[in-house]
């Protein structure tokens, strides 16, 4: 089983290749240029893996939260490949990925995951780190300074009073190797970026209601 994963949720785009025997992660300094470089990234990854797209059994894409531009480009590219190539595709969100990482670090009990946004806010979810299904509640947007909850863990950054969790390659590999995905059209359409914050226009319209 071989997979190709891409994470364009940040300025630095990450990609991971994995199969039954190995996996490797590479970073690409795409800054705001993911739209131009996405195919080049896939070329690099497949070349290093010594295979072609035809050999890939599963396409996987990070669904965020994160840069909506990057997430859309990656999802747009991989979803199209899945459709025309008849490949199964799956989405991996940062919260589930972080929870898997915590499980592999033997963290247990209730946890509060905090993912800062560019403004002084953060997405917050609570979950049971021991849950084998990696379920978590609906993300909420809070002021960074006012987040509270059991076992505060900040994702990919250091925040005062919180431990840090960096979603790991090992956790991703574990998630993807065991992933059941199909190339069913509806399943492909279901792989979309997470929209946690409504646009300004939507918020304004909601306020008017």
């Amino acid at each position: 089983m071989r997979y190709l994963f891409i994470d364009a949720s940040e300025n630095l785009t990450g990609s991971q290749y994995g199969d039954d025997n190995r996996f490797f992660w590479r970073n690409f300094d795409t800054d705001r240029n993911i739209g131009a470089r996405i195919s080049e990234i896939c070329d690099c990854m497949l070349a290093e893996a010594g295979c072609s797209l035809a050999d890939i059994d599963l396409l996987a894409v990070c669904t965020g939260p994160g840069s909506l531009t990057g997430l859309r480009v990656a999802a747009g590219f991989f979803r199209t490949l899945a459709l025309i190539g008849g490949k199964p595709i799956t989405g991996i969100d940062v919260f589930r990925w972080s929870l898997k990482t915590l499980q592999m670090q033997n963290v247990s009990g209730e946890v509060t995951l905090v993912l800062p946004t560019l403004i002084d806010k953060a997405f917050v979810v609570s979950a049971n780190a021991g849950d084998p299904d990696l379920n978590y509640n609906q993300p909420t947007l809070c002021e960074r300074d006012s987040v509270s909850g059991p076992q505060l863990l900040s994702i990919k950054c250091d925040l005062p009073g919180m431990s840090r969790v960096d979603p790991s390659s090992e956790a991703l590999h574990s998630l993807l190797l065991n992933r059941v995905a199909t190339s069913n059209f509806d399943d492909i359409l279901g792989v979309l970026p997470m929209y946690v914050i409504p646009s300004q226009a939507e918020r304004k319209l909601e306020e008017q209601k």
Partner: protein
Amino acid sequence: MITIGIESSCDDTSIALVENGTRVISSLVSSQIEIHRRFGGVVPEVASRKHLEAILPLLRECLDAADVKLEEIGQIAVTSGPGLLGPLLVGLSTAKALAWYTGKPLIPVNHIEAHLTASFLAAGRAPEYPYLGLIVSGGHANLVLAEGPRQYRVLGQTVDDAPGELFDKVARHLKLGYPGGPIVQKTGETGNNKRYQLPRPMAGKGYTFSFSGLKTAVMRIVAHEGDNLDLPDLCASLQYAVSETFVEKVGLALKETGARRLILAGGVAANSVLRDSMQKLAKRYQAELLLPTLHLCTDNAAMIAAHGYFTAHLAPADSMLVNAVANWEMGAPYNF
């Protein structure tokens, strides 16, 4: 050769298949007008989201409807600018995946240039040069002399609002709805176009356009007339003022450049008052006028495929590295 075209520069997602740049095999458009109507205009973030949701079902439907296999497609043409960046990137990433998977050439297309090619496509012809092109839409009022593929001499453009934008703003002010162009046309159908005296902006000042003054003039009339305002007359007068403005500038261009072929393009080219006045103008100058069909006036992928076909020889070899750009002037180099 079959070219697949992909368009997502604003609020229409579109996929089309065009043979040899002149015959539309299949052309589908998924419009977001109903979604954006409640905001009174296009919201880029919402548009991007909807493009991503719509593009794959449209791609599948387009291929199925035409009974064309992926292997039969010779090249992929995609709008890479100008337009809204987020929406553009959805189309571009889809096109790049198609090109990467099939190994077929990717041709980045300038959306505004493609609007001009739409008129030739409507006539089932390849572009013939030189010609005078008037592109009128929600974001543009450009008068250009096309001298060859991707070779344009910009004669004039708007210094403020575009005509489509003017119609949108006026329609919003009059609480007529969105989008403004079709509503203003419909409302003005029975009106007297000489009832309200509106200015002819930039009259006698070369090729430069300006429409914000017209908007202000309309608002003054609305305030002055109060309950006595005659909406059909106002809409008819507004369209007359806009079309007369174009008649003056395009007439000057036909005279000065000697061009004997005129192309009207863009969403506002669907306006019947403007179409009629351009027909009369072309007749006066014994010029050939090419008009897009109504389907080809608005944003569509068929024009992207056609323009891609006729400019493929100019596309860079490493076009897979091309990016989407919000501002891409007609004829300007490809974007990396």
